[in-house]
């Protein structure tokens, strides 16, 4: 292969530095013998390479390091100052954040306090007093360190207790759930039909004139059928059981009934288990603050087993009407459940 001038240009440095293959080297030498122009170029390149090889290295200025060292020290000082400045900035930011955090805590504290004062006026930490709920109204009562109470619709609770008293006595008319937080002093729930003695437990008590029903969720209570009656008998109601004293104050007994059914009202549910229809109606009247007139034949023999959520009253009444072959009529804000048979009369 013949080398042309354009091929040879890039081989010149390698040719003079002796790094070409022997074959290429001979071809370059052959081309240079015949080409004046390339020979001239190669002469320049060879001269340039020789000149660079002949170049003497310059001695580094001996003072260069001294100046660098001084600059380095200044740089280190400047960095240290910058670092200190940054630390001061961080500290200032932390102080600001701490102040903001403190203000936030104060605001949250105030907000919580206001919430408690405005929205939970019944969280009374003073035990003594009378608590009443109207129809359709419920209350929560917090007796600090002693008990938590939920008072159901249309109920009355009187609490007799002083800070240094050795017992807590509550008179209940209606229905309530009690969670007793202390086992240091005896706690007694007094109803018209009997007394419930408790120590550190939670239970629901219903005393609506037709005796007393106690559903024990946790722990145990003792149920007594009278206060001054010498023949009073007492029965321990264990956890998960329902104790009853009938209206005529006979001996208390444990009923074959599900505890949860008696406590569902806390979760806005109505549960009736073979309940007389008059009792069902009374419960709905209390919950919805209405008057419901029952116009069906022999209501005393009509019993209802059902479970309702606290839906609009119309829906619940429609279901009751269906079960009792009745129709619902509304007069102002009151309702009439009238038997279809009575209607035809």
């Amino acid at each position, binding site marked *: 292969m013949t080398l042309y001038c354009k091929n040879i240009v890039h081989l010149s*440095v390698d040719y003079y530095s002796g790094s070409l293959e022997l074959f290429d080297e001979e071809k370059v030498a052959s081309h240079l013998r015949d080409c004046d122009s390339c020979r001239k170029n190669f002469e*320049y390149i060879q001269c340039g390479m020789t000149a*660079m090889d002949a170049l003497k290295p*310059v001695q580094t*200025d001996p003072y*260069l*390091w001294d100046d*660098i060292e001084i600059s380095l020290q200044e*740089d280190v000082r400047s960095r240290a100052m910058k670092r200190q400045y940054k630390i001061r900035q961080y500290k200032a930011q932390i102080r600001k954040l701490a102040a903001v955090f403190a203000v936030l805590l104060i605001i949250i504290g105030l907000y919580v306090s206001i919430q408690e004062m405005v929205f939970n006026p019944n969280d009374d930490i003073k035990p003594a007093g009378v608590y009443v709920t109207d129809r359709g109204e419920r209350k929560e009562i917090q007796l600090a360190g002693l008990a938590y109470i939920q008072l159901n619709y249309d109920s009355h609770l009187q609490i007799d207790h002083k800070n240094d008293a050795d017992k807590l006595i509550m008179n209940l008319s209606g229905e309530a759930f009690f969670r007793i937080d202390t086992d240091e002093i005896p706690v007694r729930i007094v109803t018209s039909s009997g007394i419930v003695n408790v120590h550190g437990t939670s239970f629901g008590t219903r005393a609506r004139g037709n005796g007393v029903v106690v559903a024990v969720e946790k722990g145990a209570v003792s149920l007594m059928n009278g206060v001054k009656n010498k023949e009073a008998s007492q029965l321990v109601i264990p956890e998960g059981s329902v104790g009853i004293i009938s209206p005529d104050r006979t001996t208390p007994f444990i009923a074959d009934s599900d505890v949860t059914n008696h406590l569902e009202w806390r979760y806005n549910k109505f549960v009736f288990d073979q309940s007389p229809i008059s009792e069902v109606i009374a419960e709905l009247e209390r919950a919805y603050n209405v008057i419901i007139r029952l116009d069906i034949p022999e209501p005393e023999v009509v019993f209802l087993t059902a479970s309702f959520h606290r839906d609009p009253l119309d829906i619940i009444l429609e279901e009751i009407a269906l079960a009792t072959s009745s129709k619902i009529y509304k007069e102002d804000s009151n309702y009439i459940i009238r038997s279809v048979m009575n209607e035809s009369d």
Partner: protein
Amino acid sequence: MNRQKIDKAIFQRAADGDHYAFKHIYDAYRDHVYNLTYYMLGNENDAYDVSQEIFLKLFTSIDQFKHESEFSTWFYRVSINACLDHMRKANRLKTRYVNHTETDSFADTSTEPVDSLVLRNQINTDIEKAIQTLSPKLRSVMVLRYIDGLSYEDISKILNCSLGTVSSRLNRGYKSLGKALIHLKDEI
């Protein structure tokens, strides 16, 4: 110019602010940096200032390097860029890059009756002047090749260009230099 190898641990110690480790690196590279800046900029004052600037820059960013091979490539790149920046700042690109025809004005020392040492110094000065007539791109390649005998591959990495470009620039650089100094061919 021979450069002593630097242990990885030295870089780590320098990165941690060890004064003696940094001096160790300075000693290994000072002649290369100083010669590079000198032949790029053409005078001792500028070489001094820019060398100082390069070593200070090294001090502030040495923690980025763990291996010497990467380090030397980076360090030469920083050095070349510092020289080019300096030339731009001083607006020297225009003043120093003269046309090749002007090189005819170099003194023809071959006719002067001087002793060999003086003649040697004069030749060196003429070579330095001829180098300054090269464009910055050609000069960078020539100086890197001269300073550390760097391979085409290393030069291409430092200048971020292809191997072909390095080869072409070296050819053009040697040719330009040879043209300028052909009258001294026998003395060199």
